[in-house]
């Protein structure tokens, strides 16, 4: 009796495992596969085959996805907990303008011009987190308000002009420098990504954010300090977004009076695409990075194939819609099974 029961159980689990290997591996790595297909397509496509698969272009892609990836990683922290930070693009833009302004107008030393904007991003995160977790204001509208406010302040500070002169050349050298043949900024993103991955999978704090995102009331009753952790997630998010702004300055060598929204939308596309991969149905670090590279490669390929400037926002918008649709579908199917 016991023997047959054990035999049944083991055959049952074997069947489950083989199921697991075919369907779910395909599901987990669908985005990676799509990424490879897009890459191959632009490599053989006659309109882009001469420019797309070159080392120089790959470096441009990697360099430009670095800032998007960083904002995407920033967005991941509140999103995992079920909160939405719409101000991250504006925080990055503010940090970029602040860093350029500190160097150009105040002639601040390099370390001040780098650290102050990053800390400033964290402080905006403190405000966001306080409004959302302490005062229980709805996160979407609240952070949208903060984003509009910051964009207005940028306009006031720059008079709508780009800051081009007076940028410390050292920061620009860093932005264009190479390490092991790759843009140095890529390694910064890699370091932040590894830290974020460790955070989300191997610390009580990161695990608690997933719990809050799943059910905040239950999280509270297993001893998770929900308000405090949500607040902290906004602060971490602001710090990373501030860093992304400084990195953008180092890449571009100037600061435009923008609102950072295009950066935010590309980053959100990456985050939501990421939720369809690696751990389908969950926002996760590796998926987010894959999503960011996917968005960058596609936009680069489209541009090099001769598509106009509108191609990039159209692609980001479509990618965001498809990604949200897919992750909603995956989440729903997960809940039903």
């Amino acid at each position: 009796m016991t023997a047959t029961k054990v035999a049944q159980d083991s055959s049952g689990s074997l069947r489950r495992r083989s199921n697991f290997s075919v369907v779910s591996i395909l599901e987990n790595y669908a985005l990676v596969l799509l990424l490879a297909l897009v890459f191959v397509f632009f490599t053989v496509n006659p309109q882009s085959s001469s420019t797309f698969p070159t080392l120089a272009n790959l470096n441009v892609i990697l360099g430009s996805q670095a800032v998007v990836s960083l904002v995407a990683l920033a967005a991941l922290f509140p999103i995992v907990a079920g909160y939405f930070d719409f101000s991250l693009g504006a925080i990055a833009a503010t940090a970029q303008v602040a860093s350029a302004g500190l160097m150009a107008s105040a002639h601040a030393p390099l370390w001040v011009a780098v650290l102050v904007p990053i800390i400033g991003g964290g402080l905006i995160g403190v405000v966001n987190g306080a409004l959302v977790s302490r005062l229980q204001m709805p996160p979407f509208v609240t952070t949208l308000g903060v984003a509009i406010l910051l964009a207005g302040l940028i306009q006031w500070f720059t008079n709508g002009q780009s800051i081009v002169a007076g940028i410390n050349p050292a920061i620009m050298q860093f932005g264009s420098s190479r390490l092991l043949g790759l843009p140095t900024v890529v390694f910064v993103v890699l370091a932040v990504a590894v830290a974020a991955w460790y955070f989300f999978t191997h610390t009580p704090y990161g695990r608690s954010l997933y719990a809050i995102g799943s059910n905040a009331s239950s999280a509270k009753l297993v001893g998770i300090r929900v308000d405090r952790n949500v607040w902290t997630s906004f602060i971490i998010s602001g710090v990373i977004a501030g860093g992304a702004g400084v990195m953008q300055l180092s890449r571009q060598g100037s600061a435009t009076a923008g609102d950072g929204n295009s950066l935010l939308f590309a980053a959100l596309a990456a985050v939501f695409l990421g939720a369809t991969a690696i751990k389908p149905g969950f926002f996760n670090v590796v998926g987010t990075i894959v999503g960011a590279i996917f968005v960058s490669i596609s936009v680069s390929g489209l541009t090099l194939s001769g598509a106009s400037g509108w191609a990039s926002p159209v692609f980001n918008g479509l990618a965001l819609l498809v990604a949200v649709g897919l992750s909603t579908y995956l989440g729903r199917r997960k809940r039903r099974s």
Partner: protein
Amino acid sequence: MGQVKSPVSRAAGGTPVALDIRGVSKHFGGTKALSEVSMRVRKGKVHALLGGNGSGKSTLIKVLAGVFPADSGTFSIATREYDSGQYSSSDAQASGLRFVHQDLGLFDDMSIEENFALDAGYPTGIGSKIRWKQLYNRVRDLLIAYEIDADPKTKIRSLRPSDRTMVAIARALQDQDADDLILVLDEPTSTLANHESSLLLEKVRRRADLGQTVILVSHRLQEVLSVAHDFTVFRDGEVAGTLIDAAPSEDELIELMAGRTIGALKPSGGVSHQASEEILRIHDLYSGPLKGINLAVNRGEIVGIAGLVGSGRSSLIKSIFGVLRPRQGSILFRGQPFEPSGVHQAMTAGVGLVPEDRGREAGFADLSVRDNLALGQLRENWVRGFMPRSRESSIARALIERFKVRVSGPEALFSSMSGGNQQKVILARWLQRSPTLLLLDEPTQGVDVMSRADIYAAIRVSVENGSAVIVASSDMSELHALCDRVVVVRNGQITDELDSSRIDIDLLNRLVLKDAS
């Protein structure tokens, strides 16, 4: 008293048959959810569907509702014949089946008449103008017929719980002559307190005496026994027994449902724990609705708190767990003053809580069983800076086995399990911490008898290992089965205290209800 304990049912006494199900089978993938199920519902009678979680009764209800088709079998409803393959939800409606589920689907902030109109349509006059007067009169007549003592303009929210269910029933039956309809009540009382559910069931029984056909699904056997004429018991997708016009005992039904006798549901014989270490002493506590509570709990003791919803029983538990901050009074935990600033401090001190509402306050529906267990131990699972999944999985597997959770493995989603198994996982989450004091708020609400027996057994093991347990419940048979001592909470005060020799279900019900509305 023709008792027919075979899978084939026979209508006794020539009562006309309202619903006749013959040989219905249903597979989900490789699992057989229903196999060759037959049952016969007599017109104007209350027919109870019983069985544990996963026994097939919910599948049968869904087949009847047309949610999914059965693989084979036929049924006739009133005079119509259906082949299970072609039956749809519109057929269910047309043939006169009306379903009222546990989630009543009422709009709490709208009035009774609006709830009726949203279902059946507003009566309109010239230019689509709503004829409020006509609606009011029609709904008023219905409320009188269904013994609901309320004005049609009353908001659903301000109705007493049993009346809300009655409104849902009256709404489901409003469009036709109710005697031609079959009312299916799916777990109507699982969220109601004892006296509310008896009020409801009395009204349901009176409707049946007037000719209403009712199919009743419930876990609460005593209630079922008080109201049903006929019983069909499911076990593992088959009809384990059919009792027509019978008055079986609770034990007979449990034995049919489980296929064996279950001892854990019986009192194990209360023990006095006067001599053992005092774990908790509450002195003159004012918190939420509580007005001066004094209570002491010793090691190895199971203390029950009997009270209605709103009596303060949940507030008492939440004050001990650091969720509510007391206004006045003191709590001593193992002899030390205890003022937790939040749940995390209560947990660190060795207190655990299984909350009342499993779905909203305890479970993480879209996370795995492994996650749901590990989230109770986040700090403890963080060893040398890492939380390896393999260790969590092996801990989860051991807990699944120890608490007899029926689930495919640690990675299965919490929401994929039945209510009873979900509750076992929540209990396991806390018992893995070997808490000094375990607080249980309605620990077996919506849980079938077999799982309930497993849960009681796990609670008894934990007190044998030195925990103290407080159980708050509106189910007096639960307190009778589990507790060494029961205190009765009424209007925020402890009004009675019964030791094990005096715990009696009827007495408890009387004490809880005394001078209540």
